[in-house]
């Protein structure tokens, strides 16, 4: 009796564990998972950040490749850099739109800033084995110290250094990491002698909350990407950065070894045509007109007449 019971208990327990494991397996094998198995096919996998502007560029890459008979799989909106970077490094994604300076900082915390070309050159060295960047585009979406137009007018602000004219306390707002970044408040003080009056963390990466805080006057300066449509629609001014305090952040495709010469040529053609004004306008179509990434990308490719 005892052994029978034990045996049955073991059996049921085993079935139980089996069910749990099987379910977990189902979950991991669900269609959302685009693991390494996909990369073994002959299609190139194009990825994008969870950022609408990045998705548009990725969509342009994908459509350009398709227009040249190169099959692609789209794996878009896959989170922030800390989430997708390991997958790129592992070769699970073949083409990914990146930004030279930001990617460099993610790969090497101690990297020094510099001009567009310097940053691009340093980035090429910092990339791990099996990854490379193709030609960079003129388009860039870089960090900037941004203020409201009214604030800029009041103190005649043009570049970062002119912040010295400001006589009221300057409260800085932005993502937590801004406080400690090499271009953060400390740099303002050390490089230009600009005193700031505290830091207010807003964790939406220069998104609508940050813009609202700036417009409401809760903060006086913040870090907003230069291609953000908010700069125009909310009457903001990105202060000029003649000394290269910020890294240049040109749009550049990061690609794996699976990208052929033909695909490389296609992507380089795209990058050569993608201007800074284009990127701002692409973003504005998504932001102001609420158009879909695929439509915006198709329209740009059509108008650029590349292929």
């Amino acid at each position, binding site marked *: 009796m005892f052994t029978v019971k034990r045996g049955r208990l073991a059996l049921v327990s085993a079935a139980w564990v089996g069910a749990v494991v099987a379910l977990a397996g189902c979950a991991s094998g669900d269609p959302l998972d685009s693991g390494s198995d996909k990369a073994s096919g002959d299609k190139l996998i194009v990825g994008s950040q969870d950022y609408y502007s990045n998705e548009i560029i990725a969509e342009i890459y994908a459509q350009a490749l398709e227009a040249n008979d190169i099959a692609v799989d789209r794996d878009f909106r896959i989170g922030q850099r*800390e989430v997708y970077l390991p997958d790129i490094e592992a070769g699970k994604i073949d083409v990914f739109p990146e930004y030279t300076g930001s990617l460099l900082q993610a790969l090497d*915390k101690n990297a020094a800033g510099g001009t567009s070309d310097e940053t691009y050159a340093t980035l090429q060295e910092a990339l791990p084995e099996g990854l490379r960047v193709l030609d960079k585009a003129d388009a860039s979406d870089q960090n900037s110290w941004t203020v409201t137009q009214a604030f800029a007018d009041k103190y005649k602000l043009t570049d970062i250094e002119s912040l010295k004219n400001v006589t009221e306390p300057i409260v800085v*707002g932005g*993502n*937590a*990491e801004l*406080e*400690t970044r090499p271009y953060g408040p400390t740099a303002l003080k050390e490089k230009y002698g600009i005193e700031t009056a505290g*830091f*207010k*963390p*807003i*964790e*939406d990466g220069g998104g*609508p*909350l940050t813009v*609202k*805080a700036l417009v*409401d006057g*809760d*903060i006086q300066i913040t870090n907003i990407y230069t291609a953000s449509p908010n700069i125009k629609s909310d009457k903001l001014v990105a202060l000029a950065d003649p000394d290269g305090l910020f890294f240049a952040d040109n749009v550049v495709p990061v690609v794996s070894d699976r990208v052929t010469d033909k695909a490389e040529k296609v992507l380089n053609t795209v990058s050569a045509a993608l201007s800074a004004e284009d990127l701002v306008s692409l973003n504005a179509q998504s932001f102001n007109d609420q158009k879909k990434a695929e439509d915006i990308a198709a329209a740009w490719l059509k108008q650029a007449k590349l292929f």
Partner: protein
Amino acid sequence: MTLFLDALNWIFDPANYVGDGSIPSRLLEHLVFTFVTLLMASMLALPLGFLIGHTGRGRGLAVAVSGGLRALPTLGLLTLVALWVGIGLEAPYVALTVLAIPPVLAGAYTGFEAIDRATIDAARSVGMSEWQIVRKVEIPLGLPLLIGGLRSGTLQVVATATLAAYVADFGLGRFLFSGLKTRDYAEMLGGSILVILLALVLEGIFSVIHRVILPRGVAAGRPTEVRAGSVRPRPGMESTIAKGRK
């Protein structure tokens, strides 16, 4: 494993105990935030819960509203409110109060419902007014479930209050966000451990409250005694089946 050791090192690093944004000040902020949120949720949910529990009406509505509130994604709500009111603590207070309302509300009305109807009828027959019944009979007897609801709400708020740091320089969430973004995972994990410890301490406090303030008659039927061999079942629970078949 080294990650956890790093986190412990971070927690015990004396440098983190001085100045602005030190561990003690963040803990205090987190605690105050939790307390105020629970207070606001209680002010909204308790009167409503007592009303539903006492009259026995509107329960279906309460369940539906609680379910709906529970399904509201806190981060979504937080950001949406912040878009209206701006950065600062207002948006976190609103979002977290919404989070805390369902458990407190459920605790209030189920506490009343769990009371044996005969007790209420007895109270009414000795001439108590409705208000007296609520105050002297239903609230004391409903306390165990009410405290359970507050306790559940507290746990959820403590854990989720880290989101306040999304729009304000406030609470233990600061450690999580700054650790995540600067890839200082020791700080992030250390911050999480502090959140869990705080939750543990609050759990302990609720256990003590539960024991100390319960009326004796209510405490008599604690589950421990069932299992100690007493045949006296827990109040309210003994009748699950019987009532279910009425």
